């Protein structure tokens, strides 16, 4: 049975291409395109003060590498127009009297216009501007205290946040997305492959032939899923290699833990694929159904959108999503390097989902034969 499946897989060159090319293309596309980082934000400047202080502030904005000056506006109307037309995402305006205000101990204002159509980029850009502004303000404040304040006031309490980013110290989006791509790709591929493998037999009418042979249903299912299983593991290894070698994602955990997680995850995706195949009569239907199941599973997995930010009912739904657990295992083994002592709930959940889905598909499969 297993041999027959492998033969069929080898015969279909088109299928082989379809299995290998999209994952690799996806890995590279996601790897390079998927980023929430903020660099080189197109920025328009309007410096109506034209003083040393204003130039210093603007210079420290551009020196941060986060902002790229794409236009210098001559007046406020032009600045607004630049942002309106999308020529710049951020417009920075320094009002006249900026340097004077700093010197005389008043508050100097910098106006920032943000195109917040992309709220995320806007938020992060605003944080960078805030950090740069805070540094400047700190310098000026210290300077003022030194010059103006009486001796007993030279000291003033201050609180700073010492940030210690763990696991991904440079906030590299790729470190977050590449392990996620591995999980999502395997999810889509293995569910589809299993679903099609059974439906194809049904469509071509060879399912009856096999059923009259002495092969038992359980053996049939095992034989059907083993190639997908092997392929899934091979694929995981391949993409992991590309991720660590090409994209330089650290791998800090143990290969064994990842292997166990992958095996448990595959058991649930294969069960899901089988279940879909028992509901559908044609490959066409199988495609539509798997699509209908995979899309929500993908959205709910936490691949792009953090689960913690979802409303509670959706958060409950994510608990039924095997991909959610696998992504947690992947990201934890890659970036955090934690082991089973932390990941056992995820492993348990995947095993339970796998068992449930496989059992359901066997029951349905028996029924669909009668």
């Amino acid at each position, binding site marked *: 049975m297993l041999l027959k499946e492998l033969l069929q897989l080898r015969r279909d060159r088109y299928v082989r291409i379809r299995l290998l090319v999209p994952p690799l293309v996806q890995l590279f596309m996601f790897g390079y395109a998927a980023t929430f980082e903020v660099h080189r934000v197109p920025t328009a400047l309007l410096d109506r003060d034209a003083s040393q202080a204003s130039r210093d502030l603007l210079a420290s904005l551009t020196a941060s590498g986060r902002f790229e000056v794409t236009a210098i506006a001559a007046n406020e109307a032009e600045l607004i127009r630049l942002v309106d037309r999308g020529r710049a995402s951020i417009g920075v305006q320094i009002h006249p009297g900026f340097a004077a205000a700093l010197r005389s101990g008043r508050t100097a204002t910098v106006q*920032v216009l943000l195109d917040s159509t992309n709220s995320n980029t806007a938020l992060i850009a605003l944080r960078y501007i805030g950090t740069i502004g805070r540094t400047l303000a700190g310098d000026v404040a210290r300077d003022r205290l030194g010059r103006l304040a009486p001796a007993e006031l030279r000291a003033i*309490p201050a609180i700073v946040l010492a940030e210690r980013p763990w696991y991904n110290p440079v906030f590299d989006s790729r470190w977050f997305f590449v392990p996620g791509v591995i999980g999502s790709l395997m999810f889509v591929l293995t569910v589809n492959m299993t679903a099609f493998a059974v439906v194809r037999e049904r469509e071509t009418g060879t399912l009856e032939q096999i059923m009259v042979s002495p092969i038992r249903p359980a053996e049939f299912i095992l034989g059907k899923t083993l190639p997908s299983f092997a392929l899934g593991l091979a694929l995981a290894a391949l993409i992991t290699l590309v991720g660590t070698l090409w994209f330089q994602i650290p791998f800090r955990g143990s290969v064994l833990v990842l292997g166990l997680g992958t095996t448990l995850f595959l058991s649930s995706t294969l069960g899901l694929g089988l279940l879909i195949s028992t509901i559908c009569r044609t490959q066409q239907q199988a495609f539509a159904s798997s699509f209908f199941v995979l899309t929500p599973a993908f959205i709910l997995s936490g691949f792009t959108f953090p689960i913690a930010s979802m409303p509670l009912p959706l958060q409950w739904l994510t608990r039924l999503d095997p991909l959610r657990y696998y992504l947690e295992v992947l990201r934890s083994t890659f970036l955090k390097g934690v082991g089973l002592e932390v990941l056992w709930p995820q492993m348990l959940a995947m095993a339970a989902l796998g068992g449930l889905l496989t059992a359901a598909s066997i029951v349905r499969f028996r029924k669909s034969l009668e």
Partner: protein
Amino acid sequence: MTVRRTLAIARKELIQVRRDPRSLLIAMLMPVLLMGLLGYGARLDARQLPVWIFDRDGSQESQALLHQVRASPYFALVRTVERYDALVAALDAGRARLGLVVPPDFSRRLRSGERVAVQALVDGTDDNSAHLAIGYAEAILDRFAAEVQGDWIRRRGLSERAFVAPLSIEARTWYNEDLDSRHFIIPGVVALAMALVGALLASLAVAREWERGTMEQLVSTPVTAAEILVGKLLPYFAIGMADAAICVAIAVGWFAVPFRGTLLALAAATALFLLVTLLVALFISVTIRNQLGASQIAILATLLPFNMLSGFAFPIDQMPAPVRAITYVVWGRYYLTVVKAILLKGSPLGDLLAPMSALALYALAVGVLATRRFRKSLD
């Protein structure tokens, strides 16, 4: 090309669509499902992040700080722990995304006018949420520090004027004033739903005729190639527009995404985008003559690039130059620019000429390609 014959083909196609209720159901349910899931689930602005706090000071001052963290809408599940390794374990297990450590001399240093550092351990795995978490924490600390400094100065009976904040950054966020990531994601879902349904259904339409051998019958009638193609696409065009209408209605009516432009501009852009999507799907199904292959390739060719390279979630101007060059081929990028501009900015059509004409050109090019390919395949 006559209208009568084109409509006849369209009617035949419509009957075929009706006979396949499952596909039609998916066509109608998909937008609702996507809208619901993404509308609620797709938040990038990270609210309710779990934060754990290790307060080593336990003073009145540190309690006041904790209180402010607790009151913030951005942090949830604030828990205080007694040991450092409990904090580490929580971060390791992902139960906490941010761990704040208040040093033991927090209140003493503040009272004596010294500088004190609160440590923020942040789980950087999800770099985006990590950024936001630090940003929120900084904002809270800034506010707290300003209060402490104000107190300090007042208690010494000094004028506060000497200590006004040197710099204030006055941010005006336009178009999406509350910085709500929903308003940024949801317009894209309209396009996503249309692209999916259009690509899936239309790619099947032509391939089905080949598979069943009915294409030969159609060709032997006096109907021309262009009439067949237009006639076949019309019903799917109608379905796609209906999907778009459903999506926009949900977006504006339910999720309260602002609609600042004109309906006419939106309809024109949507029609163009849908046309391109259908023509691409058609081109694929003319080239690959089996339904399964055609629908899979169509989904791969539209969905994947659309998700990744159109600016739907990931900003295009942040991509490396070669990838940015590829995005010009992804027609979803032009539509997304237009939809967001119409909904959020209320831009007049005059501002959108560039992406609109890009879409029109695209439609023309793919239309010509598909017709030519189709004619050739008949010979």
